[in-house]
């Protein structure tokens, strides 16, 4: 299944009347199937909002978003769920505190009427690097990294081809961050997933993304290949500044 993403003139404003705030004035970029595409930019630039629009969690946007050549608005809800999934920033807030891993993972299977719940759950738990005895745990019985693995397992259990990752490691400890990133890299290789990943960290982009877009106040200023980071080949002043600052920081370490 191909799941290239095309975003044309995506715009959205929150609020009504004179109090309305235009958060995205008109975003354009595209992600190729099988690619890992990064989305970087300062806090509040609208990165999460883009992901929520693509996933239809927020549905009052204008413009055109298509996945695999189909308009997302035309894809039936359940089919869309099997096409794309999302991993959230904070593993402490993205797992239901009163649901065990079993409930978390079996709910989507029930909703979509899939068979072999036990087998599917065991496989996906193993795929994210945990053992089967995690199935009966509750979120408060797991570490942050383990929770995020469960959140990734939940995103994978419907076998989507597109993963939207909203800063999947920023709430985690540095050593755990690397583990989760390596897990994501491995899963993409094994399953041929397409990633659209929001991050603050250009080192993460350098580690796993093929291309990335730099966002500033709701607009994509520039789309760059990974190679543009070393040596700072950006042309837009803001993107140059961002990459420059990141290189300086790394040099200082």
């Amino acid at each position, binding site marked *: 299944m191909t799941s290239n993403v095309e975003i044309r003139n995506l715009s959205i404003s929150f609020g009504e009347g004179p109090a309305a705030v235009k958060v995205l004035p008109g975003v354009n970029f595209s992600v190729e199937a099988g690619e890992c595409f990064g989305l970087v930019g300062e806090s509040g630039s609208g990165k999460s909002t883009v992901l929520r629009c693509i996933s239809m969690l927020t549905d009052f946007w204008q413009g055109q978003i298509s996945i695999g050549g189909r308009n997302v608005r035309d894809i039936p809800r359940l089919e869309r769920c099997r096409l794309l999934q999302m991993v959230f920033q904070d593993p402490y807030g993205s797992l239901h505190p009163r649901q065990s891993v079993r409930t978390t993972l079996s*709910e989507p299977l029930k909703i979509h009427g899939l068979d072999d719940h036990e087998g599917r759950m065991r496989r996906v738990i193993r795929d994210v690097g945990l053992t089967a005895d995690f199935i009966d745990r509750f979120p*408060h019985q797991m570490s942050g990294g383990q929770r995020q693995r469960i959140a990734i397992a939940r995103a994978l259990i419907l076998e989507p081809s597109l993963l939207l990752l909203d800063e999947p490691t920023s709430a985690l400890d540095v050593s755990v961050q690397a583990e989760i990133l390596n897990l994501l890299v491995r899963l993409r290789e094994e399953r041929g997933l397409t990633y659209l990943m929001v991050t603050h960290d250009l080192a993460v982009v350098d580690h796993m993304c093929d291309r990335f877009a730099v966002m500033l106040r709701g607009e994509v200023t520039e789309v760059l290949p990974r190679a543009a980071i070393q040596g700072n080949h950006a042309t837009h002043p803001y993107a140059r500044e961002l990459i420059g600052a990141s290189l300086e920081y790394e040099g200082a370490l």
Partner: protein
Amino acid sequence: MTVKDTDMPRQASQLPSSLLVLRNILTFLMRSPTSAFGLIVLGLLIVIAAFAPLIATHDPYAQDLANTLKAPGNGHYFGTDELGRDIFSRLVWGSRISLTIIFLVSIVVGPIGMIVGTTAGYMGGRLDTIMMRITDIFLSFPSLILSLAFVAALGPSLNNAIIAIALTAWPPIARLARAEAMTFRKADYIAAARLQGASDMRIIFKSIMPMCLPSVLIRLTLNMATVILTAAGLGFLGLGAQPPMPEWGAMIATGRRYMIDSWWLVTFPGLAILTVSLAFNLLGDGLRDALDPKQMNRR
């Protein structure tokens, strides 16, 4: 064989898990003296109501006109009333009426408040506005006055009193459930459930309600004290349980006329009402601590 080995312990540990949680909550409640008092009084009330025929020393309706307004003693633990009926036995039988009121009101008010509140809070928008204006109207009257109006319209009887109390008791629960639902609906785990294709109904029942349940349970328990008092108040005003019935509030109402000379006519029913409503208040406070999320999930 291997499949069996791994599956068996899970099944064994899963079946009684809700019972285990219940046991943990009970042990937690017993640890603090105040909530233990509430729990014990409530337990006693249930035992007394269940075994009323065995515990009562007399027939609660049997009149003995030769033996009216006798002070406690002489085989009448709490004395007799103006018709010579044994007050202790009437209190014992009256516990059944109180428990019926509490039970019926809870099973009506809990689900209604929960469904209205969580739906309004989760869906938001116009539905929320309409539902909350309706609860506002109910909330703008003191509950006793509103139940009075309902009973006056429906006609005085115990059943109508229960209906009236239930009608006035759900709005605060709905309010609370809505406030809770609104704090949870923006959570990432709700967004994740939506992304998995869960319908609004499914999200409300499976994700929102479990989060609102503890505070609704606490509120319901605390509410029971008010329900007891309202029921007694309606009985006192002659709008609830009707005279021969041994309802505590109605007993105080009839005993009021003889209060000056025969203190036991109002004192014992009054103490019963006080103890039970105090017990519910203390139990509600204890539950608030026990149902703290970190406590609740401890297995």
